[in-house]
């Protein structure tokens, strides 16, 4: 499964949104209805699935689906 698909699946499961809503430009809070704790849980799911640590500082920059994909791609390169 591609990185995009894995990210999308996690978001769909956590936020209960439709897969077609999970576009790169979709903002977790304004478009996908997440509140602050949903975001924390979402970051935890990314951490668990991709085996990395996302600091609070990094998490605060991850506002959209595309932000997360970009962040994970960069992490992948670093590793």
């Amino acid at each position: 499964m591609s990185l995009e698909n894995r990210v999308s699946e996690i978001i769909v499961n956590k936020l209960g949104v439709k897969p077609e809503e999970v576009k790169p430009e979709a903002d977790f809070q304004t478009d996908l209805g997440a509140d602050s704790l949903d975001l924390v849980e979402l970051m935890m799911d990314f951490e668990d699935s991709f085996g990395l640590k996302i600091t609070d500082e990094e998490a605060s920059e991850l506002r959209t689906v595309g932000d997360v994909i970009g962040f994970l791609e960069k992490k992948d390169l670093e590793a």
Partner: protein
Amino acid sequence: MTESLGVNDTFPRGGRRLSDPAVNAVTGELVGRKAYLVGTGHCVPDRVLTNKDLEQIVDTSDEWITTRTGIKERRITNDQTSTSDLAIVAVEEALEMAGWGPKDVDCMIVATVTPDYIFPSTAAIVSDKLGMNNIPAYDFEAGCSGFIYGLIQAKCFIGSGMLDRVVVLGAECLTKITNWEDRTTCVLFGDGAGAAAIGPEGPGGELGGWHWGSDGSLGDLLELPAGGSRKPASKETVKANEHTLRMKGNETFKYAVRAMRDSCLKALDMDGTPKSEVDLLVPHQANYRIIDATARALELRPEQVYVNIDKYGNTSAASIPMALDEAVRKGEVTPPKNVVLAAFGAGLTWAGMLLKWKEEEGL
């Protein structure tokens, strides 16, 4: 009776002596006895503070508090009431259920982050007011995990044969250390006390597998900055409101979810009981969404989780014994039942324990 354990002959307490600890017939060594929870009790102050009331104090809303925490109201003590006042009533209830008198108790330990004083201990105050006979009584602090830490201590005391009857308390007046100007924390906490009577004989809930731990590197997530030896009370600390609780909510949430899940699973693993045999989860009541995540990790249905956070908010070390007492008195612990307890708190600390009520061993 074992004549060699004659300590009580020097300080007789109502003529009662320790019952026989189990002895290995070959080696003569003491063998661990089982410990049972045989009584519970709790007490909360009468005054209710609702989310609507809080809307008048800070910039918040019932909807915000409810969706993020599950809390609808909490109990709050008045200026004349302190932690020991709530604790006394909780102990009286637990002793009554256990069928013990105050002089039957061998030791009392109180988990609290809001003792009456830094010293003397709340435990000493409570044991004196209840007329217990100069028993060992002390406070200890493990944040919201304190009550389970206390159960583990009681299991050690009873299991080793050192003591027979131990009362474990979680008792708090968190609204006395709440910063009423901080809308992210002042909505979360409430006051209350819960007690459990632990003895070497059932019927009752056997104290089973457990897990406990801490990570001091995460201490700054949840702290009371001043009033200790690092930063003693001064005019400046009072002015800076440093005698009230601070919490980094999002990060604490993250560790809490993982600590609660792992504590449950490790306690079950130590006991050799699969998670499919858990009947009821009585979790620390910090946040409904943490409770929900823990329940999902154990694959429990909503009716298998005891939740009263809507009525009391987070009462720290008191929340588990309060919830356990409610569950017992509502008949939700009719045997046979496997009840798992789980908590995390300031330190950070975490703990879990399995209580096993076998057939015909109900309270």
